[in-house]
């Protein structure tokens, strides 16, 4: 994709030292200006490791080794030294972490932590920083920001901490925001408010967004494109409508069928995908990693399927050997069956 804000090619993350494993395997995707890419996938499939690798965090850990390319702002981030990397990031990429409590410093007041980010990104007077911090806290929906700015993280509720993290990420007006489960602890109305804020930043400033979430309702609402990961690999990627309407991979179809929707009849049991995902550090099964859990497996599946388009939509790629007919009819029916 030309003109992409960030273009990630063949990102691979290996873990060494006792538990050798490939946590992220040959993942490629791009995000354009003002575009929202959502990453979904089973717990432990490598979403967080992917995100942390993009901003270079896994580099500090000697047990991780990375390969591939990450093009951002005309440079390959993988080739930059630590100092340069920090500069590029400061100028453009912000990340909201999955664990607010471990990324907020418990010993410092919320306001001071946001203020520090502002100080890093320009010289302001302390009164100016305070004013801007209060404004950011108000934007993310913290009531009484004038008072709560001096609270410590433990005095905030789970959702308020998440919002403080979001405020901190937005403080440096990033051109790319990577958000790892940013709204999991938020009620639906606050969630809506945050999503609206993000949409506004995307429209007004062309901010790109990589959003990791388990909430397929949020994906449907905000994503332009979706990437589905399974066991460290991208198994399906495409435009949001294509992916929800005609899932091409049995794992995607299974996920869509498991949603306990509020508009669904209250059933005795929820459909789920049988079996458990492989433990990456114990080695991945040969061929398609979904094989042991797949109801459609063929002999061929012991070889790794390529990531390619099944139909005419060349932007909708999947990694499954099934014929396009089976994908379009059977998988679609699986999902409808769950909705009925």
């Amino acid at each position: 994709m030309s003109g992409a804000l960030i273009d990630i090619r063949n990102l691979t993350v290996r873990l060494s030292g006792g538990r050798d494993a490939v946590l992220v395997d040959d993942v490629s995707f791009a995000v354009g200006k003002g575009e929202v890419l959502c990453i979904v996938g089973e717990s432990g499939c490598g979403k967080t490791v992917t995100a942390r690798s993009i901003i270079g965090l896994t580099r500090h850990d000697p047990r991780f080794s990375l390969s591939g390319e990450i093009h951002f702002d005309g440079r390959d981030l993988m080739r930059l030294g630590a100092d340069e990397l920090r500069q590029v990031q400061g100028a453009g990429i912000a990340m909201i972490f999955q664990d607010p409590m471990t990324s907020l410093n418990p010993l410092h007041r919320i306001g001071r932590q946001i203020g520090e980010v502002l100080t890093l990104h320009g010289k302001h007077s302390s009164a100016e920083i305070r004013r801007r911090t209060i404004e950011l806290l108000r934007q993310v929906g913290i009531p009484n920001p004038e008072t709560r700015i001096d609270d410590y993280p433990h005095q905030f509720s789970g959702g308020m901490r998440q919002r403080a993290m979001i405020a901190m990420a937005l403080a440096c007006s990033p051109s790319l925001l990577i958000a790892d489960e940013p709204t999991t602890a938020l009620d639906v109305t606050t969630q809506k408010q945050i999503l609206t804020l993000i949409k506004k930043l995307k429209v007004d400033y062309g901010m790109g967004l990589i959003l990791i979430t388990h909430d397929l309702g949020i994906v449907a609402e905000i994503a332009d494109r979706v990437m589905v990961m399974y066991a460290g690999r991208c198994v399906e990627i495409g435009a949001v409508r294509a992916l929800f309407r005609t899932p091409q991979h049995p794992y995607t179809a299974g996920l869509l069928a498991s949603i306990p929707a509020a508009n669904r009849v209250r059933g005795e049991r929820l459909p789920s995908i049988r079996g458990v995902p492989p433990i990456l550090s114990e080695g991945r099964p040969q061929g398609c990693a979904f094989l042991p859990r797949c109801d459609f497996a063929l002999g061929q599946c012991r070889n790794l399927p390529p990531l390619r388009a099944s139909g005419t939509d060349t932007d909708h790629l999947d990694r499954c050997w099934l014929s396009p007919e089976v994908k379009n009819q059977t998988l679609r029916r699986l999902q409808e069956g769950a909705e009925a």
Partner: protein
Amino acid sequence: MSGTPLVRVAALRKYFAVKGGWLGGRRGQVHAVDDVSFDVASGETLGLVGESGCGKSTLARCIVRLVEPDQGKLEFDGEDITHRPTRSLRPLRRQIQLIFQDPFASLNPRKRISQILGAALDLRDASVSRGDRQAEIARLLERVGLAPQFMDRRPRELSGGQRQRVGIARALAVGPRLIVADEPVSALDVSVQADILNLLKDLQAELGLTVIFISHDLGVIRHVSDRVGVMYLGRLVELAPADQFYAAPLHPYSEALLSAIPMPDPDAHLTRKEIVLEGDIPSPLAPPKGCRFHTRCPYAQALCAGSEPKLSTQAGGRLVACHFPLAKQESTGR
């Protein structure tokens, strides 16, 4: 439902003092849980929903007695535990377990998963032999969908959802009668989430487990709950059987919540009418006078700003705190 409820919460209150202001030491009080009352029957699942910061976790921490309520009364199995001193809480821990909202902060990073679960098993029965203990830990991990290999890992080596499942396994290990689950499945993908919700259902059928389930995911709440309670700014504003609640909420805030559920359909917005709440979220430091929701309620009338509606019984035994509860007509949004 008959006999003594397993949990009885009566006019419970918990305020937190906060240092206010940048210049001075002006102090305020966060009205985290304010005059909340409800019962939970043995074997029942009560779902709790509400705006972020409305006091759900604080209520949960009161019920498991991690914090002491300021006022009101808290009974477990007919026994008053409101002010039971910390040193005599250990027997209670065996019966009541909390699944924490934040799995990152609630697991000791220095301990291995086997040690974390082992300590929980000891709380149930310290006389179990070593071999049995390992087998039991493996069985617990399996129940939450984790392979036995995870035993030797430390929390840092787990993903978010894997940690959350360790938190669930730890609560189950104790063999409690009551589980207070604070956002237990929010970090899980929908398939694992379905497994965990099914597991909770099974345990309820097998052991008569009672559950208080906090979640912002109204789809999950609908699936697990017998009754649903809605909180707003420290108050319980509606309590109703789940089916009735979803069919026709009585409180305007409940209606707004239900209308904002993100739908797993990229075109949902085309057919759905959403109620957008106007106005700022009021501060729990100084909740609005009158009905606490009146600053944002689309149905507010003059009376609402002056007098606070009490939680009262409506036709059909449903409880709502509103002067003008929504009629049982079809409500907008779904």
